């Protein structure tokens, strides 16, 4: 940040020129897409359903609200799991460290689709038969919790070790130092990476459609196939995901600014 900001401040009309570059790139993209010989009339018919403005005929959530429910729910649980696991990674307890590293290794190292099917098809063999939404949230949060744990651990380790020593010199307990001194700084530096993970999860949440959930990609593909306008519907889904991601980017920037003000 320190190297780029002086240049930005010095250049007049910087944001205007950035906007011009964006517009140019968007036009090139539009030209590329228009060369596909597509018919977008069907898109407007199906858009209300993709946006989930009504419940499905079975009375279930569908489209954008379902994608958001699954992603936001998973992100909240994933942040908690990630924090717990990161604390396990820096713990001196062999059990905590062992559990955290095993969890991390397994859920980062196996495909998300396999994890979803593991939970959805595997758990019923033991007894409980999870519904699709809880199974999806469980799988996504377990997987992303493992990624987040690495991010949190790196941010915690990156805080100057002198701060630990300063806390100890003041007679604070390790737990207090962690909660009051280290974590607030670590979490702030981790925000950009966590935001990236959230955007990635938004799109990975389409994998829950294997359990019959009618999220954005499921509807786009189903409509595309029944109307023989597959590419058109996929492009529509892509634009919806992109807009959702941009909203998340803005929220992330706001959160960063807010935290900087409260540091």
């Amino acid at each position, binding site marked *: 940040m320190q190297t780029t900001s002086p240049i930005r401040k010095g250049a007049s009309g910087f944001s205007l020129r950035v906007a011009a570059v964006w517009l140019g790139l968007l036009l090139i993209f539009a030209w590329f897409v228009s060369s596909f010989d597509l018919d977008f009339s069907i898109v407007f*018919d199906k858009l209300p*359903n993709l946006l989930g403005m*009504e419940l*499905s*005929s*079975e009375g279930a959530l*569908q489209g954008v609200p379902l994608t958001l429910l699954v992603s936001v729910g998973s992100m909240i649980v994933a942040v908690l799991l990630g924090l717990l696991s990161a604390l396990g990674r820096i713990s001196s307890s062999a059990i905590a460290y062992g559990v955290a590293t095993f969890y991390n290794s397994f859920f980062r190292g196996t495909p998300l689709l396999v994890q979803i*099917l593991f939970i*959805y*098809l595997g758990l*019923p*063999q033991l007894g409980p*038969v999870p519904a699709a939404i809880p199974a999806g949230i469980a799988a996504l949060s377990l997987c992303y919790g493992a990624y987040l744990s690495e991010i949190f651990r790196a941010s915690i380790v990156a805080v100057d070790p002198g701060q630990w020593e300063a806390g100890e010199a003041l007679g604070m307990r390790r737990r207090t130092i962690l909660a009051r001194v280290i974590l607030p700084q670590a979490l702030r530096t981790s925000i950009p990476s966590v935001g990236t993970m959230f955007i990635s999860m938004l799109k990975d949440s389409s994998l829950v*459609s*294997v*359990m*019959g959930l*009618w999220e954005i990609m*499921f*509807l786009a*593909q*189903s*409509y*595309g*196939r*029944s*109307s*023989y306008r*597959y*590419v058109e519907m996929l492009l529509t889904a892509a634009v919806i995901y992109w807009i959702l991601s941009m909203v998340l980017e803005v929220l992330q920037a706001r959160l960063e600014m807010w935290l900087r003000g409260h540091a």
Partner: protein
Amino acid sequence: MKRSVPIVCFGLTLLWSVAASGGETLDRINKQRVLVGAVDPSYPPFSFLNDKNQMDGFDIDIAKAVAARLGVKLRIETPSWEVVTAGHWRGRWDVCICSMTPDKQKAQVLDFVVAYYSSPAVLVTTAQNAALTTAPDISGKRIGVEQGSSYERFLQKDLLIPTPDGKPLTYFFDKVRIAPYGNEDLAFQDLSLGAGKRIDAVLSNYGTAKLRLDKMPGKFKIVGDPLYNEPNWVAVDKGDTEWKVLLGQIIGEFRKDGTLSRLSNKWLGKDITQ
């Protein structure tokens, strides 16, 4: 001795699940007043999302008729094909009237009740392609199929299905290069680039191919006669014999009273249930 406890537990669970399965499905349906059917989410005209955002099609109409016959409501769910064909439904779904062709692998995890229609396998190529006029012309050509479908198995010369005359299928071609796709739409997308560009033809079933030809006039054509006829069966989870027998009777009634023929004519323009 301690070690054997989990094994005993496992054995008991197994015993219990076998003992509890007689008529269990029908009990559940009557208790909840709902028949839960699993279908393929996009297999027009057999099952697809219609303009009103509801599942519709030949398979759906038959499921509706079964629910009406049982005096309960129908709920349709759309788990992916892999999930349905993994078996072990554990009461999630009661029946799959979903254009499923039995083979040895599927019969190990699912029970097949009765055949309800037979679909001709046809070869589709571009309307302009003159190099393909009869089915044996596919030798040496590149043919698109849906990954894991019976059409892929057929081209691999490894399709074991019951045939009307009881004879095994004849494989009249040689050195076909198989191009498996995640779904048929991608195969047709590639075919529409021109025959021979990426693939020369797509092997599919008459029902879905006919609808595509009607919806996209002038682009594709069906080559020659059907290659073989493929039986499509009603599938249920393993274990509940009473439910299987009852479903078999209901479909049998539908065949006799003309329900199957009527629905076939409605969705396919001809009767493929005889």
